[in-house]
């Protein structure tokens, strides 16, 4: 593993977190994790920001042409993983449903 390859680790983590937040922005999935309703817009903003940050990490790790492929494939892998977690152990995602992402928090 050379120095730049290390950047793939934050890229993976950020993408998983991003997909987790995007999933929780959907009321149905939020309910699988905790009660109440999600602050959907806030979650989506957070999710997309994490996706962008993940892209930056990919660019740090590899040449741009390669980074695009890693990023796209990582999106698929992370989305499928989050889907399977929600199907089998949804409460594993509880730590992503921070208070600021709950709707009550806004009021």
């Amino acid at each position, binding site marked *: 593993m050379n120095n730049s390859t290390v950047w793939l680790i934050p890229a993976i983590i950020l993408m998983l977190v991003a997909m987790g937040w995007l999933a929780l922005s*959907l009321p149905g999935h939020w309910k699988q994790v905790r009660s109440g309703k999600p602050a959907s817009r806030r979650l989506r903003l957070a999710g997309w920001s994490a996706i962008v940050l993940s892209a930056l990490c990919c660019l740090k790790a590899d040449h741009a042409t390669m980074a695009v492929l890693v990023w796209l494939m990582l999106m698929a892998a992370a989305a499928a993983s989050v889907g399977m977690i929600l199907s089998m152990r949804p409460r594993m995602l509880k730590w992503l449903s921070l208070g600021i992402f709950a709707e009550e928090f806004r009021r």
Partner: protein
Amino acid sequence: MKFANTRQAMAWLHTWLGLIFGFVLMICFFFGALSVFDREIDRWAIPDTRFDPQPMPSFDNVLIDVFNRTEPDIAEYNRLMPVYHDSAAGDITPRTELPADEYWAYTTHRDPVLLMGIGFRVPKPLNTKEHNHIHGRATIDPRSGEELPSNSLKIGSDWFYPLHYSLNLNWNFIGFYIVGIAAFFMLVALVSGVWIHRKIFREFFTFRREKKTQRATLDLHNMSGVVALPFHFFFALTGLIIFAAFYYLPVTNTMLKPLHDMHETMEANATGLPHQRLGITAQIASVDDMVTEAKRRWAARDMAGEVGFLMVHHVGDANSYVSIYRAGSDRVSLVGEGIHFKSSNGEVLREDPPHSTAKSIAEFLTGLHLQHFEHWFLRWLYVLGGLLGCVCIATGFIFFTEKRKQQHAKNNSQGSRIVDAFAITTVTGIIIAAVSMLVANRILPADLANKGDWEKWIFCIALSFSFLHATLRSSPVVRGEKNPAWREQCFIITALAITAVTANWLTTGDHLIKTIFTTPYWAVAGVDLSLLAVAATSWKAAARLQSESIEKEQSSSEAAYE
């Protein structure tokens, strides 16, 4: 056919195209996913080659000797010589006396062995304008120059890999065309699939496994299709692009043939690289010096690298030249920064200039499919993409039968029974075939004549067995129940996969503790670990199907008591 709306028409298209071409696409996706690690499967299957990847060896000391002793392929000679040879010009040249016209050698960052080839020319050709080449091939250990035993088959790169684009049906390229048509309709199925999907974003992460089979299967079908949509789309598309010019739309070699020939001549004039032999014999200078010079020039352009492909054109002629290409392991695009040398004196004839934008895009697209790059993480992501494709197609089959089998049971129709049997063959059957081949590879004696052919036969027999078994056991489908062959074939996969890992250990001494910890060799460890993962997954699936069928029996026998 009358449809109430576009959506219904799209659903019809998706259902039937998906069903018909799904069986082919399943093979493309599964064996495509295995091809990502074709070289590693080769190492597993040919234990003599379990050593580290090697750079291109010296041409002057190693390669030239191999080229000199390699003969034209017997089968190809028998097939093509009568076609190429002009019998009016004299006697047919014996196979071993054909003169060489071109040499090539090819390696990648994953290859311990070196692939070499020769194009022999026909001295008295019928059509003087064509190349008329008859080929010879060799795979050598680059450390010693020794050839690999000819009875060993590279299961990864010479069976699984071509299987995914040609189904290994080479008669008139029929397999290429079937795959091409399937890939095209894959694109159609993707577009129509997105069209008929009601809640792409709302159900992006949705897999309700607790719901009944039909609903749960559709969820999984949607999820595996949508999350990897860019992968599915680009791999079907780039697969088509790679073969388009050769097989699917070969206009440059048919309708535009005169233009093509003119272009070749003009290109030869423009690049200064001779198009034809001159007819004057000439010696070849040191190719190793040319390699050194090529490496120096790449380093000067800030792209230092190893040689991936080396080719000598017009061997032994005054017009002969050597082309040296860089191994493109650090980028996606499949480019070689070729540098061309005059064979007789080693003078540089030409350095390939950077490509135009259009050419670069084409190279990126083909490169992303052919993956010559060195990026193990991305390779695994590709495997995952391929397997998601398999999940998508397989759940499509299951959804098709789940939706219809009750109806078919009422009407006494055999439709879902047949579809289900085909589905079993293309889901569990291809895994049984692939793993049986690996087991056979380890169990058949190493010195068996034509061992590779035996392995191919076992692959085909195992696949036919799976189909027969699925058909013979299919009667419950007529009653609207599950075919027990699903469960039984899952058990067979588990047994075969464990046998393969054990047989590898017993016949080569390479067990996982050795290949992971004591003397790491990841190619073999990776194949073994994947086999164990397959064993565990299929065991779990089989156990689940088993408990389901037992529950069903109990509830039906209770119902009988009441």
